[in-house]
C-alpha cells in the first residue's frame, strides 16, 4: 500500500445506489464556490458603487432637465449649480461662509463632545456618577434638540451663543450615551482578571476599560459629528449673518434656488468628509478589531 485514501470502501450494495440528496461543489472552481467572482466584485464594486451611484443620480438630474421633465426655476440643473459656485467664489462669500460654519460646528462638537465624554466616563466608572447623571440625561435625550431652539433663543438671544448652545447640546448626548454604555459594558471577567494581578482602579481603567471601550466611544464620536452638523444647519437658519446657512436663507429670499442647492451640497460634502475622517480614525485607533462583514 502506498497511498491512504479517506474514501470508504464499498461494503454494501445499498451504498452504491444513486443518492437522492442535493450535493454542491465547494472546490475552488466549483459552481458552489464563487470566491474569485466575489473578490473581483468586492475590489471593483466597492469604489465603483460608492462613486458611481451619486454620479448616476447627477447625470439623471441633468437629463431630467434636458428632457424638460422639470424647469430650471424649480430644480436648477447641476450645470447651473456649478455656475452658482463660481459666482459665490467670485464674490468671496463662499470663502467667508465655510470657515464660519466649520468653526461653529467644531466649537460645539468640542464643548458638547468633551462634556459627554467626561460625564459618560464618570457615570460608567462610578456608581455615584451613574446615579447623578444617568436618569437626567436619559430623560433629556428623548427631547428632540429641535424643540430647544425657541428656548435657547429666549435664553441666549439670537446671536452666536444660542447657536453654540444648540450644537453643544446636540453633540453631548450621543457621546455621553455611547461612552457610558461602552465603559459600563466592558467584560467584568477582564476587570476581574486585572484585579487578580493586583491592578489599582486607575490601572484597570487605563489598561483594560478604556482600550476595550474605545470602539463604542468612537461610535459616539461619529454620531456626535453628524449631530453637530445637523444642528449646525438648524442653528444657521435662525438669524445668521454669516455661514453656509446664511447663504442659503439669503438665496431663498432672493429667489435663487441654485444657490440654495449649492449650500445644501456643501453640507452633504461636509457629512461625507466627516465620515471619511472617522473611518480613518477608527482604522488607526482600533488595529486590533477584526473587520467583519457578510461579504
Amino acid at each position, binding site marked *: 500500500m502506498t497511498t491512504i485514501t479517506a474514501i470508504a470502501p464499498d461494503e454494501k450494495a445499498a451504498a452504491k445506489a444513486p443518492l437522492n440528496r442535493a450535493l454542491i461543489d465547494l472546490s475552488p472552481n466549483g459552481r458552489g464556490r464563487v470566491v474569485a467572482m466575489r473578490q473581483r466584485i468586492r475590489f471593483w464594486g466597492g469604489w465603483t458603487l460608492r462613486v458611481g451611484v451619486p454620479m448616476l443620480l447627477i447625470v439623471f438630474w441633468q437629463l431630467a432637465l434636458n428632457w424638460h421633465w422639470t424647469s430650471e426655476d424649480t430644480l436648477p440643473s447641476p450645470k447651473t449649480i456649478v455656475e452658482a459656485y463660481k459666482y459665490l467664489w467670485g464674490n468671496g462669500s463662499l470663502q467667508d461662509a465655510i470657515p464660519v460654519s466649520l468653526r461653529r460646528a467644531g466649537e460645539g462638537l468640542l464643548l458638547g463632545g468633551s462634556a459627554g465624554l467626561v460625564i459618560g466616563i464618570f457615570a460608567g466608572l462610578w456608581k455615584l456618577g451613574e446615579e447623578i447623571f444617568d436618569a437626567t440625561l436619559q430623560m433629556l435625550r428623548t427631547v428632540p434638540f429641535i424643540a430647544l431652539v425657541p428656548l435657547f433663543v429666549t435664553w441666549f438671544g439670537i446671536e452666536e451663543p444660542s447657536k453654540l448652545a444648540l450644537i453643544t447640546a446636540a453633540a453631548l448626548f450621543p457621546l455621553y450615551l455611547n461612552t457610558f454604555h461602552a465603559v459600563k459594558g466592558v467584560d467584568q*471577567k*477582564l476587570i*476581574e*482578571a*486585572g*484585579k*487578580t*494581578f*493586583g*491592578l489599582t482602579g486607575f490601572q484597570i481603567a487605563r*489598561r*483594560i476599560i478604556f*482600550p*476595550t471601550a*474605545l470602539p463604542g466611544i468612537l461610535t459616539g464620536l461619529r454620531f456626535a459629528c453628524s449631530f453637530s452638523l445637523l444642528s449646525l444647519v438648524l442653528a444657521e437658519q435662525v438669524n445668521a449673518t454669516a455661514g453656509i446657512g446664511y447663504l442659503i436663507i439669503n438665496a431663498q429670499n432672493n429667489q435663487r434656488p441654485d444657490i440654495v442647492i449649492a449650500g445644501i451640497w456643501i453640507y452633504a460634502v461636509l457629512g461625507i468628509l466627516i465620515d471619511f475622517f472617522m473611518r480613518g480614525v477608527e482604522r488607526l485607533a*482600533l*488595529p*486590533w*478589531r*477584526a473587520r467583519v462583514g457578510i461579504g
Partner: protein
Amino acid sequence: MSASVDAPENATVDGVSTVDGVATADRAAATLDGFPAPAEPAHGVGNTDEVRGAAEAGYVVEALGVRRVFNGRAVLDGVDLRLRKGNFVALLGPSGTGKTTLLRILGGLDTADAGRVIVPRVRSTVFQEPRLIPAQRVWRNVVLGARRPRAARRRATDALAEVGIAGHANAWPRTLSGGEAQRVALARALVTEPDLLLLDEPFAALDALTRIRMHDLLAALCARHEPAVVLVTHDVDEAILLADRVLVLSGGAIALDQAVDIDKPRNRDDPRFLALRATLLEQLGVARTVGGGSTEVAASGHHPVDRNPTTDLH
C-alpha cells in the same frame, strides 16, 4: 524568594498578607523591570499575628474554617486548607460545591463570611477562558500586572518563550487559537513569579490534544517556579496527573484529602493511578469500573460523604 517558606526556623513574613482588604498594605518599591517586589519586610504594615504565625510555620496559604454563604445557603462551611511552597493540590467536586468560590476567596476576588484566609501577596489566576484584553498586544497582556509594562517587555518575551509562543509577542489576542491564548494566560500568571497560582479549570475548554500538551507544560513550569498551586478541575485524570494532593469538596467542606504517591511522570495505565481514580470517582458519587480516557465528573445526585446534607447543593 520568601525565606520564611524555605526555612521556617529563620522566619520572616515576607510577601504574606491577609485578603481582607485592610491588611493588604502598600506594595514594596517597584523593581527595575517594572514589577513590584514580591517580598516585604517582616515589620510591614498590616502583618498581624496570624500572618506571622502562618509564615513562621512555613505556610504560604492558611485558610481555616472558611465559610461563605450565598442566599442563606452555605456553599463553603468550614474549609481548612494549608499549603507550603511548591505544593500542588487539585480540588475536585461536583458542580456547585464551591470549588470556584474557594478559589475566588483565595484570589481575593471574593471575601469569606467567616474564617481565616491568609495568602501570599503575589498570586495569580488562570481562568477557564484566557481573559486576554483584546485591545492590547499579547506581550502587553502578559505584563498586565506590571507597574510599568514597557519596562517589563523583556520579561514578557521571556515568559512567552517559556510557554512556547515567543513568536506571537506582537500579535493581537483575537488572532490566537484557544490553546495559544491559554498559553498567554499561563505566561501572564507566571511572569509575576507568584507564590500562589490559582487555576480555575484552565484546560476545560481546550481540545484533547492541546490539553495533553498543556498538562506537560504546566507540570514543567510548576517544577521550575515552585509556586503553591490550587487547581480546580472536573477531570479526575487531570487531577491525578498533576497534583501532589487531591482534595474532594463536598457538603461545604473537604471530604477527602488524598496524597498522590505516584512517581512523575505519571502514566495513566499505572495500577496505582487506576486505583486512585476508582477511589476518587467513588468519592464523587460516580462509581465506575476502570475505563480508558479521561473521566469527567458529572453532576450526581448523591455523594458518599455528605457530612452536612442541609448545606449541600444537590
